[in-house]
């Protein structure tokens, strides 16, 4: 069950030894605290990954720059990518899932609280292991270094022959360890959703956030494991003399690519689907209407999950597959755009006819819609494999995926922060600072990532520590770097907001947004046991029914 400690409500502090408090946090099995731990650790790694990005952007500000050496640059982009995907995006989404799913289904905790804690600490340990490589990576000379093989560690670059020492092993082990943590969390999420829903909450009455986390968790089971398998094979190659990816012995570098992308593509859907979940909760509340097309949204999400398992080789259009394979993956990649587009239309349908409140959470959501649309369209461009033969491995694709991850995922996450921070802490995040955060970040984001498409079109490949002048890339890169600093400034404003509001923010009360799902029926922050009595629901918006007894949802759905 949940922890045996009732968190002291904000403002009523007794003198509490900080060691005691720390111990509570380190040994907690309460889903809410674990959720906050996940989020906090993700924010920490976000800062570190962000610094790595800034180092990259300073180096690329003009051609033939030597702010950092090529070795350091290559480590920076490797660590930046690995950190952001595995130690920022996944943990923060698991953190929100952990926090919200039990609350939204009327449960007292996750199905397996101790497994939950174990999974978090595995994930955190993975992050520490990755960064320990800066100290222990070389293994030969006593001076450490971090992995520099890119976040995909393509074979044979990841083999012993081309990556001596242990830097590559830290990459492998860190991901293996945190991968097991992810699988534990996924199992927990599925068991919780299938087994612990409160009475009346049939599957077709669950909030969309719950549905989407269920789908995401299912994908984690099937997508993370191929990476784990491939990494075990890599370790066998590196330490036991195996030949899985040893091209000199007849092994196949392409096989690594297939295994990696069978993980890699579903992984990005694993990252975006919880963000769809946030949008599906936030946009209705700030449009004052239910989500448009709930069953279609569920069906589209499930459809995306399935189809996304069949598109992976669109990351491999340049490796020389035959024309039939290229055509197949072109078709499936374009096809996955259909359910994704449907979701965008449904969100617009939700806004349509509503009464929009432009709170910061909604500003970020609107930004998400606009940017995710563009990101999806540049994805369709690259789905056309011949076009991808030019765009792949260039700054165009870097722009595309940052458009999804920063313009889509991060914007949705910011929305989620502004929306649920009051529930988690009992205080509202400042709207004024929030708007500064939004506009600064929007400007910085577009400055960087709109412009970044152009060097790609002009032939600039990715993962280069410097470039020739005279190719038209100089001014563009300079502008891109300026945008990066503006985004960094915006993040600082955000962090300031998080901290200041914790102490000085307006009290939130149970339900500051006049929302409709179960988490808003209890105090902010919730008591350790969540619900004094297990709720019973009769529709998709139980609080709407309570607030509008003359016109309950249960009459219509």
């Amino acid at each position, binding site marked *: 069950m949940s922890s045996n400690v009732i968190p002291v409500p904000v403002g009523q502090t007794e003198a509490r030894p900080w060691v005691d408090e720390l111990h509570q946090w380190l040994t907690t099995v309460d889903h809410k605290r674990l959720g906050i731990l996940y989020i906090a650790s993700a924010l920490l790694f976000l800062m570190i990954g962000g610094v790595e990005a800034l180092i990259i952007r300073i180096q690329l500000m003009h051609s033939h720059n030597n702010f950092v050496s090529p070795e350091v640059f290559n480590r920076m982009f490797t660590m930046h990518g690995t950190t952001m995907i595995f130690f920022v995006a996944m943990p923060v989404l698991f953190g929100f899932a952990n926090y919200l799913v039990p609350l939204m289904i009327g449960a007292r905790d996750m199905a397996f609280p101790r497994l939950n804690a174990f999974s978090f600490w595995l994930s955190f340990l993975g992050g520490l292991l990755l960064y320990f490589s800066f100290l222990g990576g070389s293994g030969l000379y006593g001076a450490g270094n971090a992995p520099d093989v890119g976040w995909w560690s393509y074979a044979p670059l990841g083999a012993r022959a081309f990556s001596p020492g242990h830097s590559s092993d830290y990459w492998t082990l860190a991901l293996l360890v945190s991968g097991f943590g992810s699988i534990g969390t996924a199992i927990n999420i599925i068991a919780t959703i299938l087994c612990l829903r409160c009475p009346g909450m049939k599957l077709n009455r669950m909030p969309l956030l719950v549905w989407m986390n269920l789908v995401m968790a299912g994908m984690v089971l099937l997508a993370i494991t191929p990476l784990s398998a491939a990494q075990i094979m890599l370790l066998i190659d590196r330490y*036991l003399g195996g030949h*899985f990816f040893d091209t000199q*012995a007849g092994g196949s570098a392409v096989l690594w690519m297939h295994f990696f992308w069978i993980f890699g593509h579903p992984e990005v859907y694993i990252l975006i689907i919880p963000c769809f979940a946030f949008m599906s909760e936030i946009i209705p509340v700030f449009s004052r209407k239910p989500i448009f097309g709930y069953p279609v949204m569920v069906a589209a999400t499930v459809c995306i999950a399935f189809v996304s398992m069949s598109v992976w080789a669109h990351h491999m259009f340049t490796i020389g597959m035959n024309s039939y394979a290229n055509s197949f993956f072109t078709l499936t990649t374009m096809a996955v755009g259909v359910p994704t587009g449907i979701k965008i239309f449904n969100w617009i349908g939700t806004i349509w006819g509503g009464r929009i409140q432009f709170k910061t959470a909604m500003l970020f959501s609107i930004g998400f819609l606009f940017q995710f649309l563009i990101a999806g369209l540049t994805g369709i461009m690259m789905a056309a494999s011949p076009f991808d033969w030019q765009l792949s491995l260039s700054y165009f694709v870097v722009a595309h995926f940052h458009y999804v991850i920063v313009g889509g995922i991060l914007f949705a996450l910011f929305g989620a922060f502004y929306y649920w921070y009051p529930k988690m802490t009992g205080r509202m995040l400042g709207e004024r600072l929030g708007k500064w955060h939004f506009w600064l970040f929007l400007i910085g984001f577009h400055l960087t990532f709109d412009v970044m498409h152009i060097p790609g079109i002009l032939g600039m490949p990715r993962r280069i520590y410097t470039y020739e002048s005279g190719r038209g890339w100089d001014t563009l890169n300079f502008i891109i770097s300026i945008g990066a600093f503006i985004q960094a400034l915006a993040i600082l404003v955000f962090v300031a907001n998080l901290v200041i509001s914790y102490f000085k923010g307006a009290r939130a009360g149970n339900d500051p947004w006049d929302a409709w799902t179960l988490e808003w029926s209890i105090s902010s922050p919730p008591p350790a046991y969540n619900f004094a009595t297990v709720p019973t629901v009769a529709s998709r918006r139980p609080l709407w029914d309570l607030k509008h007894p003359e016109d309950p949802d249960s009459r219509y759905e």
Partner: protein
Amino acid sequence: MSATTAPFPNAAENWDLPSRGKVAMACLIIAESAIFTIFVVAYLFYLGKSTPGPTPSQVLETPIFYTICLLSSSLTIHLAAKFLARGIIFAFLGLWLLTIALGGLFLFGTAMEWHRLIYEHGLTISTNLFGTTYYSLVGLHAFHVTAGLIMLAIVAVFGRAGRVGMKQSYHIEVLAMYWHFVDAVWIVVFTVVYVLGR
């Protein structure tokens, strides 16, 4: 507002949800199946591509006896769980120990085969592609058998101490699911390595 949603009439006549242990084990099995699938794919992909060294048809001997051992252990564990559900502890324990013995026998057979392959045919994990994929796949499976045996042994110890009864029946069933999974994987591995692969 301390609330809860007011109960609605007709809200939850029969609120019966699946139980979390079996759901969780099913999820674990799905995840593990994906890992095994990748190793099987690698094995199949590299069939016939080894340049030096022994090939499967040259060195592999079909382990019929040990396969029968492992597959029968599925039957014994199933019966053991059934007896436990009915409270017949003595039968449960006997069948449980038999399961462990059969599983242990299977591992012994694997060890014997590996010994033969290494010392008589010089096939190791680093010899060629076949060696790498064979030892990895069979080894991954043997690792899962070992993990299963450890868990079965722990239950056996508790059982001997009289602490396993009908109330633990559900947990035993969950563990038995894992063991059945391990056997099912062996059927696939056996087919791929000893039937298709030669």
